[in-house]
């Protein structure tokens, strides 16, 4: 059995959520999907390890979830949208999770984003046709 190689595998710093990742992280994503229901969130809170067992997580996956190792959970192939259901209620935004990949703080991450907008209005004026207030 072999996972087919894709051109997108070579894009640096990017993890495309394809069959290979979806397969290996299925139980993790399913656990996080259950958090759409408030009663499931409560059940998890009451006994995280037991809840992980219920979803058939491996021991290493369970450790990541119980320890709230958000970066580890992402590296284990969890889809970012399912990750959001785990991290947002715990005060960790999707931006904070992204920042963790670079070893910087959420604030630094947001600063870097703001820099992307510098000079934008002038740029759009030059392009022409854009609404500018």
């Amino acid at each position: 059995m072999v996972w087919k190689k894709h051109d997108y595998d070579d894009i640096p710093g990017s993890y495309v959520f394809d069959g290979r990742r979806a397969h290996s992280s299925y139980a993790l994503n399913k656990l996080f999907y259950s958090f759409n229901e408030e009663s499931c969130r409560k059940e998890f809170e009451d006994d995280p390890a037991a809840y992980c067992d219920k979803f058939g997580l491996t021991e290493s996956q369970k450790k990541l979830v119980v320890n709230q190792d958000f970066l580890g959970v992402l590296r284990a192939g969890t889809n970012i949208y399912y990750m959001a259901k785990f991290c947002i209620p715990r005060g960790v935004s999707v931006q904070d999770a992204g920042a963790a990949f670079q070893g910087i703080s959420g604030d630094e991450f947001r600063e870097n984003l703001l820099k992307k907008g510098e000079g934008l209005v002038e740029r759009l004026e030059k392009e022409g046709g854009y609404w500018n207030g």
Partner: protein
Amino acid sequence: MAKIIGGVTTSHIPAVGNAISDGLTQDPYWKRFFDGYGPVHDWLAEKKPDLIIVVYNDHGLNFFLDKVPTFAIGCADKYDNADEGWGLKPTAPFDGDAEFSWHVAESLINQEFDMCTCQEMLVDHGFVNPMRVLFGDHEIWPVKAIPLAVNTVQHPLPSAQRCYKLGQALKTAIESYPQDMNVVIAGTGGLSHQLQGERAGIINVDYDLACIESIINDPDWFANQSTQEIIEQAGTEGIETIMWLVMRGALGEKVNCLHKHYHAPISNTGAGVLLLENADL
């Protein structure tokens, strides 16, 4: 006969909904982004469309990864919003139009787009935030709405070209509906952004503006790009921009651009607003 009177594009990110809920639309961070919808609001108020088809991707509310339809269309009379896992207050439900949906689904399938038909469909922020940002919050929404979901989450995804062709088929489907009805198509998501990996946080203004120009004047340029090429330029989540091509395909060959707005960043993304009308109307 039903008629497509125009197409719009908009971001659908959760932060947009949060900003509306928290009353932050005139906050310095958000003001330029939200003010850029003004001309679209004016147009919608003037045209009063009967129905809007919102092309979006589900983020794990209605569809789990056990079953991921490439293209799905709501075929119900009503669509509910629900909590996505962090305590969001659901909006009022959206009225659909089952007869119209089933006609569109049948026409699309006859045109070899094998849609997943959904008689129950929870709509998440990908659908709800475009509705809120285009129409404001309502207990009774002023327009019927139909969700059309595209898988942009779990690869393999439909290609950009396939999305463009779906839009063209959607045009045929809508224009063959016997009842008089004015329809707007919203292409949502994008533009460039990447939420995870060491490359998280990319915003590619050059590429975003090129996509905007392509959607208006030369859709083939964007439609001919591969998933890998788009991800390379726009980021893993920026691939959502292919949904703009569904909207664009549903318009005619030539369009008039009535409004063009770009802002970056909003949260992690470059955000584009377009209002397009068929040139031959």
